[in-house]
């Protein structure tokens, strides 16, 4: 399987400047593990010491916020688009 992951600007230094990378995983949690194999260090930037997504990181699967799905256990399938986006933006 192949999942397309959009990488936010602050993390592109870890992906050799790529704004979009291919990875895989049956759930969001697995995807983050696999991303970390490909781009070491990326998980500790996205997750806290307990391995949970940080408060100010939002993840979207096919444009839907995973907090409306099954959080980090949201299942992924071949061809899914995942966006990682800083939560701090906007305001009316």
């Amino acid at each position, binding site marked *: 399987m192949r999942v397309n992951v959009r990488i936010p600007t602050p993390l592109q230094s870890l992906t050799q400047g790529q704004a979009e990378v291919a990875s895989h995983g049956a759930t969001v949690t697995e995807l983050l593990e696999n991303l970390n194999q490909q781009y070491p260090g990326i998980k500790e930037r996205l997750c806290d010491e307990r391995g949970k997504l940080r408060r100010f990181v939002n993840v979207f699967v096919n444009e839907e916020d995973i907090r409306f799905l099954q959080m980090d256990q949201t299942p992924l399938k071949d061809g899914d688009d995942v966006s990682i986006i800083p939560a701090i933006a*906007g*305001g*009316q």
Partner: protein
Amino acid sequence: MSYMIGLKCRECGRLYPKEALFVCEYCFGSLEVDYDYDAIRRSFTKMSLAARPKNLWRYRELLPIEGEPTVGFFSGCTPFIKADRLAAALDVKTLYIKDDSVCHPTLSFKDRVVSIALSRARELHFDTVACASTGNLANAVSALAAWAGFDRYIFTPADLELGKVVASLIYKPTLVAVEGNYDEVNRLCTEIAAKYHWAFVNINIRPYYAEGSKTYGFEIAEQLDWQLPQHIVVPAAGGSLITKIWKAFKELQLLGFVREIPTRLYAAQATGCAPIVTAIKERTDIIKPVKPKTIAKSLAIGNPADGYYAVKAIEASGGWAEVATDEEIVAGMKLLAETEGIFTETAGGVTVAAAKKLIEEGRIPRDESVVISITGNGLKTQEPLLQQLGTPLKIQPTLASFEHTFRQHKEAKLA
């Protein structure tokens, strides 16, 4: 003279240069402007303030620009009104309205934040400005960018009120109506901002932009002769305004303008979009996003960027939060208009309705001082009122026709 040291992560404290940055590379926390308060203390005094022009730049030392301001010379310094008729209707002793429904030039408090954002965008050498907006910000960016000579790109949900669409288009921005809700527009714009070299006022310019909301708090303090109110009810969308009012009061305390902060903050949201109120009532700092469904479109942010900080500020102040249904919102708009002669938008209806509930519930004691924050103008959100206000009395241009109709009207009123 600049009093701005740099940017600092609100979470981990890492320092960043004062550029178009908004998020910490390490922990994704938001960046906030860091000031040299010792230097500010020397020039920002009650005495120096008295002689300054009546616009929001009178608080210049506490605003994040390096040179002289270039945008917003007529914004801010809006009326602060002792609202005795509304006080009587709500059965509370001392009530004030801080009225940004008449802020120059686009009739909402967004003229404040945009004045700061565009002044800073110019210093950072941008020639194009942009925003993701529910309408008021769109109007403010469109107008002030026209005045300042920036190219302007505005992104909004496609289902905005006609008044807010017209009040953007007249200034000739590129207006992009996105088929989605505000949270989707915002996410899209975060991705666009990463790709295009534009000053998105509420994304990459956000640390500077957000500081503009402090002027609403500074003005309340100054207009009360540096006596802070005991209660202030604030509408909440992204949660930034209430957070920055608190910061404004903290800064005034730090600089010795006020000795203590007796103020409790209250967030007002619509029942159909209340992630901040829910967190307060459930006593948690985890903000659960929602899919908004409310006539208060300017408050329809289901995933509030500053929700966490808003909750922290409300808790620190000992305040609370309340919601208003669509019917209560319309009733709130009508009550404010009928008692105080102020026509506010739906968000103001939310605030009045929430204040009413907080007083009835005993959260706000009836004998203490209350400020209701009115942040937008009702001429922009007329749709929900169309079937709610009755119709004019239609007559022929004769005295007989008038007197006949007038008699009927009076009888109908009595019945």
